[in-house]
């Protein structure tokens, strides 16, 4: 049985097609989900894609959080379904309090689009099992509000529990605290990051194909969940 991975389209989502393509290239069945859906159409995992949901007015992700589909996703995420938030999706996960902290305006104030080197700090989450801890990967980064912030206690807790999943290497692109590029929840099924692995799945269009591991990891994880 092929894994069904859903990608949510909010009004203003932009990298939803790219996430669907990445799911397909990884070998899973891509399923489009609409923000007004309350059913998740039997998907096994969810990607919240990048973009500017609702124009990113107010705060990035703040309005998307209240959409009908998010209410179901909140329940399923708490029940263990793998959920990946990329960029705007990460912001939605933080706004929804599925992940701690928040994303603020880049410290240099500009939108930045560039290739970004990352270190995989935790290769045990639902979205990173196909990587190895300490592995370095390069995927694109593009955001205007990607500075990860949380209070010191939360940051310490994240570090202590190994919940920092990715860290920026060769220069912090946005002022994120402790060079944090992505984090996970305690259970390891919900992961959010600012960089865009779905834009590093084809050598023709990406700097590398090192983003593919996110999507194959989810497939690996889902197989294990079925067998468990």
């Amino acid at each position, binding site marked *: 049985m092929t894994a069904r991975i859903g990608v949510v389209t909010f*009004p*203003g989502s*932009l*990298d939803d*097609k*790219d996430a669907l*393509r990445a799911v397909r290239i990884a070998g899973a069945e891509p399923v489009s989900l609409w923000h007004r859906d309350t059913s998740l159409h039997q998907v096994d995992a969810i990607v919240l894609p*990048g*973009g*500017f949901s*609702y*124009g*990113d*007015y107010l705060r990035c992700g703040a309005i998307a959080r209240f959409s009908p589909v998010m209410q179901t996703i909140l329940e399923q995420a708490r029940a263990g379904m793998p959920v990946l938030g990329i960029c705007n999706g990460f912001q939605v996960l933080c706004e929804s309090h599925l992940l701690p902290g928040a994303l603020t305006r880049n410290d240099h104030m*500009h*939108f*930045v*689009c*560039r290739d970004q080197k990352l270190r995989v700090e935790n290769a045990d989450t639902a979205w990173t099992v196909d990587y190895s801890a300490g592995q370095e990967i390069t995927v*694109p980064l*593009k955001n*205007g509000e990607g500075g990860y912030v949380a209070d010191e206690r939360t940051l310490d807790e994240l570090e202590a529990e190994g919940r920092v999943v990715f860290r920026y290497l060769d220069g912090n692109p946005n002022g994120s605290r402790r060079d944090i590029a992505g984090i996970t929840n305690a259970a390891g099924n919900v992961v959010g990051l600012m960089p*865009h692995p*779905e*834009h590093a799945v*084809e050598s*023709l*269009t990406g700097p590398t194909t090192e983003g593919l591991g996110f999507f194959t990891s989810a497939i690996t994880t889902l197989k294990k969940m079925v067998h468990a």
Partner: protein
Amino acid sequence: MSSDIHSSAPRTPAPPQTPAPPQASRLDTTEHAAATPDTELPWAELGLKEDEYARVREILGRRPTGAELAMYSVMWSEHCSYKSSKAHLRQFGEKAPHSDALLVGIGENAGVVDIGQGYAVTFKVESHNHPSYVEPYQGAATGVGGIVRDIIAMGARPVAVVDPLRFGAPEHPDTRRVVSGVVAGIGGYGNCLGLPNIGGEVVFDSCYQGNPLVNAGAIGVMRHEDIHLAKAAGTGNKVILYGARTGGDGIGGASILASETFEDSSGKPAKRPAVQVGDPFQEKLLIECTLEAFAERLVVGIQDLGAAGLSCATSELASNGSGGMRVELDDVPLRDSTLSPEEILMSESQERMCAVVEPSKVERFLAICEKWDVTATVVGEVTDGDRLEIYWHGEKIVDVDPRTVAHEGPVYQRPYARPSWQDALQADDAGKLPRPVDGKELREQVLRLVASPNQADKSWITSQYDHLVQGNTVLAQREDAGMIRVDEETNLGVALATDGNGRYAKLDPYTGAQLALSEAYRNVAATGAEPLAITDCLNFGSPEDPDVMWQFVEAIRGLADGCRQLGTPVTGGNVSLYNQTGETAVHPTPVVGVLGVIDDVTRRTPIAFAQEGQLLYLLGDTREELGGSAWSQVVHDHLGGMPPAVDLERERLLGEILVSASRDGMIDAAHDLSDGGLVQAVVESCLKGGKGARLVVPDGIDPFVLLFSESQGRAVVAVPRSEEVRFNDMCGARGLPVTRIGVVDGEEVELQGQFSIPLSELRTAHRETIPALFG
């Protein structure tokens, strides 16, 4: 507070508004206009000339109503009517080369070309120069928004944007405001819209100080059967206005009408702001819902609302169709309920579209709009007459032949003459300027050149743009052209480059326009794509100045002749006049966008020299051509002489060689030579690939000329050793001069016997200028 009207039920009596609607007796109906022939109207304030106003009266057989005057005045403006340029632009049609690829030519929202496999591509460049000086962020943002709506209106999905930009002197105190605002606005709008930015230009010159040029281009892709035209056919079909509500944006002129003549001005701003604010999120929804309606075949005709808003959309739709049109202005959803009918007609509120839909499909159309949270309202219908009639509070305020508004505006034969200073300018030969005397001076000037604002790396700007979204970007910034994959199965793709050199055009506008064309053509060919068709954006000063008018006429003639010779038709474009501060016009700046097609994007040729040991060949002839060159500007702050000579047959041959070499896998990198000459191209390719180059000076050429001359029809290519013979044979057989100039090697750029510069030093020089100025 919010008393916006939103009635999708047609023809309900208008709800009461605040403030109270003007009494019937004060409304300037057509009947009232006929009965009061002597009423004075502020036609001059609205920009009409005396004879133009007389012509309106003659067409109507009476004085116009205020609403009619509003429509004629905006539609007959230079911007909408092309009254100064029309007579000359005709050449683009008359001289057009035959092209099987051209599906829709000049005159529509944008031209459409066939790229094979059932796909069609539409593309266009437009200017948003003046608004971007007043309010750089919003001016540039709404420029992107406007060009993208042109693309959607053709039935295409927008797939990429480009932004050719011209700013004032880099060190001028006002330049930072304009640069940072414009760049943030283009990024802010384009990024939020989900369109990759794949190219453009950034040029600084003090001639643009009070008139930055903000041109924005877009490409869209569709299937042949999805091409849509702006016309209102089919009696009884409904006219649906959808998108943003109408507010008081950009209607300075109409407010004069409303406040001074036709209503008491109490409680109204004397003059509404002329600046529009963009809402890219609304535009993203507009794209999605429009494409969904197209896919379900719900739309008969469509028009975007840009300059001149509803006046333009209704008159163009009606005049391009077979019948007439009746519009109920009360049904237009408003953001500001105090707007007068004249203002509603002239408002330039952004993110609006107008569709013509059969009655049986209206419900479905509205449902799609609802799905995307887009406000949509039936505001009128197609009638069987030939009049455009507009009603307000049940009374007729416009009754015109729409063709007279949209297509039969004035046409001027403006006087023009070769400027008296042109000869002296051309006689001031750049060849006489002092040149570097030894390797040390050459080295120093190379570093100055690559660090100069115009030649420096623009990543600080382009990294503020998302070039990746949609996942089909094959080539983008720092390559010769942007390239987009159109079909994931077959790898069919398109490439687009925009170019223009105002310095060349100032020296000789005919040649300058052809140089813009040949550079963009060469850039596209260098990536391995075959040039197919062009768009242009002609940025000039005041057409009322015979000097400027001459530049304009010459540039058009040059471009039209050039396109005929290269076989690339002009599919559409834009004219921006009055780019001047006081008496001083900007350099004549024709910007040309060339679209190419590539059957397999995986064979694209990048600019990077990345493979150690590969051989570097210079294609084409290098002559001593320094007029208008980057070297003359950077080292001597000089502009004079003749621009480089154009040889379009050579450009075509070079293009064929570059495409063949890509197809047969003979080259790994190619970079066209343009401003800055060979050394600029080599430095860019080395820095991109992270590898150095060892160059030798071929026999019979002066090292300085080799490095800095801007002779056209040239490119530098990196050839794997295994392909050397085959590549040379091909060039030889086709008669293209080819010179081996060096090898990719090491960590420095070296010109044997002259100088060598470490890559790190070049990188610093090339990369730090722009952030230091604007970061």
